[in-house]
């Protein structure tokens, strides 16, 4: 079945062994689920793809879906968000397995956070050393003993997944502080529908645009008030923040106020917004601001982005904060090693999703072993996110490896090492419109309110440079729309659609012809013929 596939855009596509390609088999034939898509891409051809790309850039610039990059000279400018037009396709069965694994993992992480700030049972049992927890930069002593409503800490979670060359999905990193990127998931889908609707023709792709309602529902359910009366706000550091677009987007989509620190004040341990009608209470805050800056009385005293006394209101239980303060203790990269143990300890289950093999360098034996193999491993600082400070052994120069060796030896507690994962690839449009394999990861988004809901798919991040494994947008990565296909078997879909009803008989549309003159003439004529 190769007729539609011989166009330049796809004809020369060859997956790169040993990496798994998600749309093509190793011999270059399209996978069955992807066949219709590949054919349509072939029909579009390099010209069509490049043209759609230009339209995409124009639309994104117009809508302000951009991000700041700094060029070599240091000057920063806005670029349209790099959305690649070839989607990544997952079938229903694959997705269900991922979903179950994620829900399990998030539940365990939530338990862990609660435990760390209360009874510390996992420490007492000798599973996680207390020193490791206490030395996490995000361990927040100020929230010790506080239990947020519903016992939910990780309201929004984005656990990053990768697919290894053997086909298994592994979790590469947990993000439960302020995971970002959902706005791109939603905007990417909307853009794809506008730019290349023909790609959707042979597929039933599950929707993603219910995310804002999910988030709003979760925030309302944890707010300390009657659900219908809860005032929810999105708290942003302001327009200078690189993720501001997303903060504003979510506030708009949920229909809630977007507030900055100067809009908020705490009086008598209750949080208020300053409005034209005086102070109005805020019951739940979706905060996109780091713990450290949240309250100058309890955290960094020099923070101008915080609200003095917020922690008092939080302690008094008069406001719900999502994600809870102090959840960063669960996404520390050293703590990541213990997540499978957490699943066994808190849930009594075996982990469905595996970790990538990770080496804790605080252990002297591990340290020895790792130092001997630096050029084969990935090294990451424990307290950072966004790909900062990461060294990928196989791609690093000797100088870089030496430098890393010195850094690690000087301060082993601040680093972990991981086996390199052979990230899967997905065809990606190159500058000439021809498709080439590029590495991807996946960040699904989960909302934890009364239960855990996960948006189908999530953000697929793609490394735009050939051979590169770094997918973060701040380091030159792009993204793709992620399709999860409907199948007949989805038990969790919300019941059958309402029966197709016969529309009622409506009056005909009117068109307003002016026939006044004619009638009068007729009358005249009749008269005359009398």
């Amino acid at each position, binding site marked *: 079945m190769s007729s539609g596939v011989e166009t330049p855009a796809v004809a020369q596509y060859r997956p790169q062994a040993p990496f798994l390609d998600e749309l093509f088999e190793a011999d270059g034939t399209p996978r069955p689920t992807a066949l219709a898509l590949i054919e349509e891409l072939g029909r579009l051809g390099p010209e069509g793809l490049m043209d759609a790309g230009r339209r995409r850039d124009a639309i994104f610039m117009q809508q302000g879906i951009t991000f700041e990059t700094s060029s070599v000279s240091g000057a920063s400018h806005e670029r349209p968000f790099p959305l690649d037009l070839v989607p990544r396709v997952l079938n229903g069965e694959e997705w269900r397995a991922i979903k179950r694994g994620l829900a399990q993992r998030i539940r365990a992480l939530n338990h862990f956070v609660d435990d760390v700030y209360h009874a510390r049972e996992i420490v007492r049992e000798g599973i996680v050393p*207390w020193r490791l927890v206490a030395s996490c930069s995000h361990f927040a002593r*100020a929230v010790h003993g506080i239990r947020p409503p519903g016992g939910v800490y990780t309201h929004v979670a984005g656990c990053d997944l990768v697919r290894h060359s053997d086909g298994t999905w592994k979790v590469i990193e947990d993000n439960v502080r302020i995971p970002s990127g959902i706005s791109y998931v939603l905007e990417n889908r909307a853009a794809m529908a506008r730019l290349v609707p023909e790609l959707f023709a042979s597929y039933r792709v599950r929707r993603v645009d219910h995310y804002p309602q999910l988030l709003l529902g979760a925030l309302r359910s944890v707010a300390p008030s009657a659900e219908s009366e809860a005032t929810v706000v999105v708290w942003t550091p302001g327009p200078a923040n690189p993720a501001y677009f997303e903060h504003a987007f979510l506030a708009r989509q949920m229909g809630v106020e977007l507030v900055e620190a100067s809009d908020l004040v705490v009086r008598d341990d209750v949080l208020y917004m300053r409005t034209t009608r005086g102070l109005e209470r805020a019951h739940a805050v979706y905060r996109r601001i780091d713990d450290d800056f949240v309250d100058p*009385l309890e955290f960094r005293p020099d923070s101008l982005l915080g609200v003095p006394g917020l922690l008092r209101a939080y302690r008094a239980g008069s406001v719900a904060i999502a994600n809870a303060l102090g959840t960063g203790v669960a996404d520390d990269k050293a703590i990541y090693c213990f997540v499978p143990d957490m699943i066994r300890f808190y849930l009594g289950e075996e982990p469905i999703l595996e970790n990538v093999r990770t080496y804790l360098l605080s252990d002297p034996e591990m340290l020895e072993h790792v130092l001997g193999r630096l050029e084969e491993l990935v090294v990451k600082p424990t307290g950072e996110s966004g790909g900062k400070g990461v060294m990928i052994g196989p791609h690093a120069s000797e100088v870089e490896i030496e430098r890393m060796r010195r850094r690690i030896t000087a301060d082993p507690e601040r680093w972990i090492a991981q086996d390199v994962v052979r990230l899967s690839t997905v065809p990606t449009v190159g500058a000439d419109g021809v498709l080439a394999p590029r590495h991807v990861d996946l960040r699904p988004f989960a909302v934890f309110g009364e239960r855990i809901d996960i948006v189908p798919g999530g953000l697929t991040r793609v490394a735009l440079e050939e051979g590169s494994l770094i997918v973060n947008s701040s380091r030159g990565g792009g993204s793709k729309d992620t399709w999860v296909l409907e199948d007949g078997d989805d038990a969790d879909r919300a019941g059958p659609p309402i029966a197709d009803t016969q529309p009622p008989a409506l009056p005909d549309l009117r068109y307003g012809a002016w026939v006044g003159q004619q009638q009068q003439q007729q009358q005249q004529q009749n008269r005359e013929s009398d």
Partner: protein
Amino acid sequence: MHFAIRFLTEYHYKAPVTDNLNALRVRPATTSTQRCDEFHTRIEPEARVSRYLDYFGTEVLEFGIPSAHDHLTIDVRARVVTSAPPEPPDGSWESLRSSSYVDAAGEFALPWQDQPPIPGLEDLDAALEADSPLETLELLCELVPERFEYRPGATYVGSTVEHLLEVGAGVCQDFAHLSLVLLRRRGIAARYVSGYLWAAPQEEGENSVEVDTHAWLEALLPGTDGHGEPVWVSADPTNRRLTGETHVKIGHGRFYADVPPVKGLYLGGAASELSAAVTMSRLDPQASARA
């Protein structure tokens, strides 16, 4: 020894301010060698004071004054009874690696301010060589006041240990921080203590004296001969000795910022003038005989 302590702070603001939020860590703790019997707070303008125990177990008083005001008075009174601490245990260096020690030490043994290395620290460290952790602690209490001058104004509240070594002078807070760094380097868990120190009055017959809040430290020493639990032993390098009944502890933490006596914020650009006085009074009559 019985003490009455009065912690009186007054702020005057050049122009009215609002939303004045404060957290106080001033109440004497109740420990194995100390008991706080009475405790009263008066705030003016009137404010509701709420209390809770923080992560380190220190009692915190919180209050806020939303409406406009141009002065704030914080008046805290307490009565406390202290007793002499027991003889410190004299365990070995090896015991520092035992699991019971590591468990008890927790985060207080974590390295602090050791990256990048501080110039001059190696020398100090070398002078603390001793046969046991207790000896090192005692040496420390001699060494620090030897090498550093007690001079208010040489450093400021945010000074690092590196700064102290550069200047060669500082106050009790700096001495305590330096001691923590030196002890932890050797694997001895140590924590910062904030409290009040009774200094005998200058004049005979007086039993009241004005003091400042004082800073010292507690080091975790292993049990003698490997028996017994590790014990937190108080030491005061500023005053060249292990502590006694004259030290009244408020609370501890990793460093100063974990246990500041007063922390606050207000809204309004006006500058504030502060007058603070802590008065300690001996309540047992035999006191004046002892120095």
